[in-house]
Every structure is written in structure tokens, then in C-alpha cells.
């Protein structure tokens, strides 16, 4: 009896809600969505990533560097005619600076602490990204 009443109520609500129908968006809704998409596409084209140094320039540089170093290391005697200026660079006395660097020690706790923090931040970034991406996935 109760089951029948529940079924009847289900049918009643279904009929009522279907009769009420859906809300209607504005008449230009679809056109507006499509125009926004087209605008976005154009923007993406304008701002698409283009490397500052094109790939071929990198290749040419690698080849030129290869030739230069190959020539220098394989045939050093060919460079004897190049006379480099002789400068006195003693005033760049780096010994003291190097000593300071040698004596510079961070406490172990700080090092381990920073390392752990870095690891946890990386882990958190990964977990958050996975979490937000899940919002658009249906299992």
C-alpha cells in the first residue's frame, strides 16, 4: 500500500516537473557561445607560443661551436699565431672569497627542513593538480 502510494507520488512529481519544463536561455545563446569560442581561438593563435630563438638557429650554433672547439682541440698549433693580450689580473684576488665560501656551513636541521619543505610542496602541487583535474573526469 505504502509502496503504491510512493510510486504514485513519484509519478505525480515527475508529471508536475515535466509539465513545468525547463528554463529558456536568451535567443542568442548559441551564437554567443560560438562567437566566444571563435574569439578564444583567434586569441590563442595570436598568443600562441613561438620560441624567441628558432630551432634552426640553435642547430647552426651547435655546428659552429662544434667546428670551433674541434679546430681548437684537435689542431692547437694552428692557433699559435693568435696573440692574446696579457693582462695583470692579480687584483681579482679570490682567495679570501673562496675561504669564506669554504667556511660557510648551514645547520643540518635547516638543510633537511628546506629539503623536506621542497619535497612536500612538489607533492602538494601534484596532488592538487590531480584533484582539480578530477572535476572534469567521470569514473
Amino acid at each position, binding site marked *: 500500500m505504502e509502496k503504491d502510494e510512493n510510486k504514485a507520488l513519484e509519478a505525480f512529481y515527475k508529471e508536475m516537473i515535466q509539465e513545468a519544463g525547463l528554463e529558456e536561455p536568451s535567443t542568442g*545563446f548559441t551564437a554567443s557561445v560560438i562567437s566566444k569560442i571563435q574569439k578564444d581561438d583567434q586569441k590563442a593563435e595570436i598568443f600562441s607560443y613561438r620560441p624567441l630563438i628558432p630551432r634552426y638557429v640553435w642547430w647552426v650554433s651547435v655546428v659552429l661551436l662544434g667546428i670551433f672547439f674541434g679546430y681548437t682541440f684537435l689542431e692547437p698549433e694552428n692557433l699559435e699565431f693568435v696573440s692574446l693580450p696579457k693582462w695583470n689580473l692579480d687584483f681579482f684576488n679570490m682567495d679570501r672569497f673562496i675561504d669564506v665560501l669554504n667556511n660557510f656551513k648551514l645547520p643540518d636541521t635547516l638543510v633537511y627542513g628546506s629539503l623536506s619543505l621542497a619535497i612536500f610542496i612538489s607533492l602538494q602541487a601534484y596532488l592538487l593538480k590531480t584533484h582539480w583535474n578530477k572535476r572534469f573526469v*567521470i569514473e
Partner: protein
Amino acid sequence: MSLQQDQYYIDKVINGDTNAFSVLVDRYKYMVYTLAVRMVRNNEEAEEVAQDTFLKVYKALPGFKGDSKFSTWVYKIAYNRSLDYVKRLGRIPETTLIEEYAEHNRTNLVAAIDQFEIDERKETIKRAMQELPADYATILTLHYFEELSLKEISKIMDASPDTLKVKLFRARKRLGGILKDRLQEKI
């Protein structure tokens, strides 16, 4: 709408035919907009959220694997977009309330609703839906209008079917109560 019917247009859109997307928008705009209205409770803002939903759908379309119905996937995005919008504005989405209403007798409800003229009835039901908490109105729309099972709705709203069953029951009671109040106002 079956996935095969949608898939044809989905493939076209992925292959660069932007205009094919308008077919998908036309198919789902009413339900997406309705869900947005029920959640956001403002027609202009709901329109913005619905458009934003379709932009997101368009961008995420290459990642749609067809594991679920396309409509379910679109509604999930619409629901999340609406929820984000409401939260961003600092409005707290009204959810479960302590119920005061008892399940109404169907005969009384039928008699009550029949008192209204057809147009007035439609308007009254729509307004009553607007008064419901966002998640109640969403469940009622998806279950009774779109005829989705609780399992399908659980994918959209990220809640277990058991929780949704309880909410559906409460939503029905609440809607019945609001409609009865409306009738009493009329009398």
C-alpha cells in the same frame, strides 16, 4: 540523446569544425541553463555560467573519453561551474535543511495543484523550485525531468546514491510543502 548521435558532432568539433559545436550547444543549453538558474538563482548570472560551461566543455572535449554519457559529463561541468560561481561570490549554497514538512498526501497535492490554471501552475512550480535549496532543485530536475537514475546523478554531484535518495525524498517533501503554502496564499 544517445552517445552515438553526439559522438558524430564531438568528432567533428575535435577535428576543428567549431560550428558543429552549435548542434551540441542547442541540444543541451536548456538543461545546462536550468541547472545554472537553480543553483545561481539569477537569470543573467545563470546565462553567464551556462555559457562558461560550454566554453569549458569545448576546451575539454578532446579529453572526453566516452566512459559516461556525454550529457552526464556536460551536466557535471555545469554543476561544478555553478557551484564555483556561487562560492566565488561568497554566497553559501543552501543545502540540506532540517525538515519541517511531512510527506504530503498525494490526493491533497493533486487537488491543490489542480486549483491553478495551466500557465499559472507552470509558473508556480518553477517559482517553488527556485525557493528550494540548490541541491534539492538540482536533484529534482535531473531525476524527474531528465529521468536520470540516482547512480547517474551521483556522478554529476559527487555524492553517494544513498545520500541522494534521502535528499530526493526531502526535496519532494519540501516542494510539496511550498506548493501547499502557495495554494493557501491563493485561497
